[in-house]
């Protein structure tokens, strides 16, 4: 975005090129960015909070149907995805460390691996979605969940209407999570190009830090989604 006003302000002696005109010093800018991201994450918690609230209400009401529906999704894939995200969190934190200690190659490779893991996650997710599509478990006109037994209650079948609520929540929650992953990938692509150009220094690498915060947050959301959606009542 062209910012014609900046030029006028840079009459002062050479400060860091990334310091925006309205900040007094780099520390202030860094703190502002970091606080901004934390506050944004608080907003995100409430965003998912509304969904968790709906989930909590219906899980209490329709527990057997939720258990049956939950059992139809592949927990192994879910666990694998959890592991993938945890690994990506590790690479992110290493990337931040690399930026702090001016290890450019490490930074670039860690950012790259993070993105790769993010793509793996989305790939597994897409596979899961495809399975659900095949099984007609996607809520809507073609939804069908007939004669699915309720775990632990032989001879009983889940109510398709209630199972559909589970799948609606499943798709909205994991879908919004996946959307956050895609946005995260976009951010990391930008970080990667910046790192490639060598823009990050131990003094200024705020984008890596706050991009990392975002990524970890998305990881934490998944840490909760995994047991809530995949592991409601698995035991035989």
């Amino acid at each position, binding site marked *: 975005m062209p910012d014609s006003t900046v030029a006028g302000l840079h009459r002062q002696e050479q400060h860091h090129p990334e310091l925006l005109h309205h900040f007094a010093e780099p520390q202030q800018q860094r703190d502002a960015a*970091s*606080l901004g991201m*934390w*506050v944004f*994450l*608080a907003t995100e*918690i*409430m965003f998912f*909070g*509304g969904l*968790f*609230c709906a989930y*909590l*209400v219906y899980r*209490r*009401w329709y527990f057997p149907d939720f258990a049956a529906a939950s059992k139809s999704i592949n*927990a*192994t894939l879910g*666990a694998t995805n*959890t*592991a993938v995200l*945890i*690994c990506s*969190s*590790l690479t*992110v*934190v*290493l990337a931040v*460390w690399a930026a702090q200690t001016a290890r450019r190659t490490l930074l670039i490779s860690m950012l790259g691996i993070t993105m790769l893991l993010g793509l793996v996650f989305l790939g597994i997710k897409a596979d899961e979605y495809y399975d659900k599509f095949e099984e007609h478990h996607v809520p809507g006109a073609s939804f069908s969940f007939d004669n699915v037994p309720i775990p632990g209650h032989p001879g009983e079948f889940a109510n398709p209407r209630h199972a559909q609520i589970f799948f609606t929540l499943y798709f909205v929650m994991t879908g919004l999570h996946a959307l956050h992953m895609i946005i995260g990938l976009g951010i990391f692509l930008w970080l990667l190009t910046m790192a490639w150009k060598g823009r990050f220094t131990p003094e200024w690498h705020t984008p890596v830090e706050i991009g*990392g*915060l975002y990524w*970890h*947050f998305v*990881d*934490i959301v998944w*840490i*909760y989604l*995994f*047991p*809530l959606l*995949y*592991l*409601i*009542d*698995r*035991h*035989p």
Partner: protein
Amino acid sequence: MYFGIWAVLLLCTYITYKAAFIELGRFNAAVALGIATLKATLVALFFMHVWHASEKLTKLVVIAALFFLLLLLGLTMTDYATRPWS
């Protein structure tokens, strides 16, 4: 240290996964959510550096957000948990 946390997180994931297949009654949910909370806390404290945050403000933001989330869930439940017919 980061690798240590990472290993713990992976271990926790494995435990959650395995525990889900064991009959624990009500405790299945408690175990799953307890481990999830432990994992989330580890990520927040160490990967997101809340533990080492130079200021209390970061901690305040995190606590405030969780507080309001619990308000949403808790006060909604004052209705659902006390409806005579559900």
